């Protein structure tokens, strides 16, 4: 059949902002007498059109709040589009959440039947597949316990196990893969791979570009409520990554925690907001002395977004001659730090102390922040330029 499996035509979705809705009679009555009503409309999707062909694996990517999940809910028939239409040419099963309708007060067995019913299985059908479901979830022993006594991992396993039985022409998947341990995720991916082979049409919403590249035939990128790119998974994944790169995050003048006597304090902090694959980071600083200060020591620390100190040093360690500063004098400092940082946000802490480190003149946490964007994504605290040569010996 030439007809696409899913046809989305000019779909828009508006939400009325809930805090302005009159949900009580009092509010309604009071509002009746107001001549102009202020209803704020929030647009979640604007003019979305696309087709999904039979057997296609479509990735939907976009930032948080871009409207991906709303789109999926419209496809699933949970929300109605404000304008436009959606046509689905087959049985559709949404994996928007695992274990829909699960009740903690019921046993595992009873929940399987309940969840099965929500997926459209009659009791006799669940009877027939019950043993398989339990075996797949590897929960033979605990089926007669109440669900509230299950660990969350067990709940997910049993939910997924039921969900995999659903026979669908179209499957909607909303990042359910984010839950569960690595072994479970592998199981999920294997299941989806098998589904893809069997010709099921799949729409997959995710942030995981590796998964997009691996599974999706095609992808669409949603940004600010509309489709900004669609095409091959590779291209769209690249554009998605690009979304995060070009604009340096607007760093408001950092107002981190600051303490110290203030006898000498930093007055100018100039740190680039964005660091790509440049060789080094330069911290341009200026300090001003409010009083005479004997032999101050200037230091800094760089922390990553999880608060781990990446590196740091001070002027004693650098064996810089210490000179005293008299009242009103300004000191210029320029630190140059090799760019060994890993991808992500970093903060700079600045200090000025006395020689022994006992008197603190200025201790400024998060005096500045910068974002590092690197080709190489590594989970470790530093990502220095490493090189590799592989050759057969």
């Amino acid at each position, binding site marked *: 059949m030439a007809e696409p499996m899913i046809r989305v*035509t000019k779909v828009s979705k508006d*939400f009325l902002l809930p805090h302005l*809705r009159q*949900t*009580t*009679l*009092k509010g*309604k009555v009071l509002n009746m007498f107001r001549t102009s009503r202020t209803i704020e409309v929030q647009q979640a999707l604007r003019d979305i059109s696309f087709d999904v062909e039979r057997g296609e694996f479509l990735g939907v990517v976009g930032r948080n709040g871009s409207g991906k999940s709303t789109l999926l*809910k*419209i496809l*699933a*028939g*949970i*929300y*109605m*589009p*404000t*304008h*436009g*239409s*959606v*046509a*689905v*040419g*087959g*049985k*559709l*099963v*949404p994996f*928007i*959440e695992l274990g*829909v*309708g699960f*009740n903690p*007060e*019921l046993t595992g067995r*009873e929940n399987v*039947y*309940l969840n*099965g*019913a*929500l*997926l*459209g*299985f*009659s*009791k006799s059908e669940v009877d027939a597949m019950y043993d398989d479901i339990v075996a797949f979830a590897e929960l033979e022993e605990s089926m007669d316990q109440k669900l509230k006594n299950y660990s969350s991992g067990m709940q997910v396993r049993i939910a997924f196990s039921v969900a995999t039985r659903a*026979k669908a*022409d179209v499957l909607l998947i909303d990042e359910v893969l984010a839950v569960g341990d690595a072994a479970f995720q592998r199981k999920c991916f294997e299941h989806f791979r098998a589904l893809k082979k069997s010709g099921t049409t799949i729409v997959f919403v995710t942030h995981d570009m590796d998964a997009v590249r691996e599974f999706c035939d095609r992808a669409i990128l949603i940004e600010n409520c509309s489709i900004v790119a669609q095409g091959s998974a590779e291209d769209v994944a690249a554009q998605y990554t690009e979304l995060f790169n070009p604009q340096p995050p607007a760093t408001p003048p950092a107002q981190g925690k600051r303490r110290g006597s203030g006898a000498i304090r930093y007055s100018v902090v100039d740190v680039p907001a964005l660091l790509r694959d440049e060789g080094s980071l330069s911290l341009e600083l200026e300090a001003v002395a409010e009083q005479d200060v004997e032999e101050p020591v200037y230091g800094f620390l760089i922390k990553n977004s999880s608060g781990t100190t990446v590196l740091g040093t001070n002027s004693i360690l650098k064996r810089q001659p210490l000179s005293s500063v008299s009242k009103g004098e300004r000191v210029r400092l320029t630190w140059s730090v090799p760019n060994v940082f890993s991808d992500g946000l970093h903060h700079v802490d600045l200090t000025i102390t006395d020689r022994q480190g006992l008197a603190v003149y200025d201790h400024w946490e998060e005096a500045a922040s910068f974002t590092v964007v690197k080709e190489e994504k590594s989970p470790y605290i530093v990502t220095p330029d490493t090189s590799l040569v592989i050759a057969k010996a």
Partner: protein
Amino acid sequence: MDSALHDSSTIDEQAHLGDAPGAANASLEALILISSLLAGGDCIADAARVRAASTGPCSVGSCTRQLGQGDRWIRARLYFVWSILRTRHRDLTALITRIRIRYRYPLILLRAMVITDFKLRYQASLLGYLWTILRPLAIFSILYIVFVKFLRLGASTPYFPVYLLFGIVVWGFFVEATSQGLTTLVARADLLRKISFPRYVLILSVAASVLISFALNMLVIAFFMVLMSVPVRVDVLWLPLLFLELVALSISLAFFLSALYVRFRDLNYIWEVCMQAAFYAVPILYPLTLIPARYARILILNPMAQIIQDARYVLVTPETETISQLYSTPWVRVIPVGITIVLVVASVIYFRRQSASFAEEA
């Protein structure tokens, strides 16, 4: 045509009418139309599903649907009824098959929800299901002692204890079905937001649970009737029809109130007060003869009053003052029955209109 029938054996529903519009015959076409209308695009068992917004129709095959247009919906329904009437026998079989498939998923859901509800309802309570019967019995005992023993009401009515208990049980069904139905959409908002299924199933599952309790209570009534040797008359054959009216009235109000409650969260308090007031406006405790006739004539127009009095008349004693006696014609029943029918139609239309936005607002 044949392929459409063939597909009927699979779980999902096919709404293809062949490639050429009009290839299928009119009755099936109408059936598909009604299926998709009833499904409201909110049923995962729907195969060819179309969701269109109010800005325009959209179509798959020859099935078209628009939201927010009640008149169109009614027209489609009338067309459907008309097409059933002129259906040939062979088509009728196909039609029944289709109806079976269409309602398969709602029925599965309904069953699962009612079973879950019963499993959960009296969990961890010592007497469990016995409470279904004990509650109305306890209320009955209190009212009996206060009103019959102390205030000497109903001395003139034969079998007054059964008469009173029966009234309480029927009224109890009405109150439970409407007030539990009222909150059910909001209470199950989690479900509404996560999966699409026919929303009316939630209301029906509440009604079904309450109906089961009602059936148990009717056993108690039967027991008392035997105990007091109340004679059973042929009139009792009217009882199913009266219960049908009761159920239709209760469910339609539950539909209407639950959809309204999504928007107006004051409604449950208002309804609670209304039910308190209505308990005295309906002749449950007192025989209607105690009321001056001109007021009684107004009170009895309330469908609940008509149902309770008629039901007592046919089951307990012919010495019950019913609407026929007050107006000295049985045809005046047209008014309460008419109210019920109007409520059924209006509430279904209202519920359907609102159901598209339940997921967002509940």
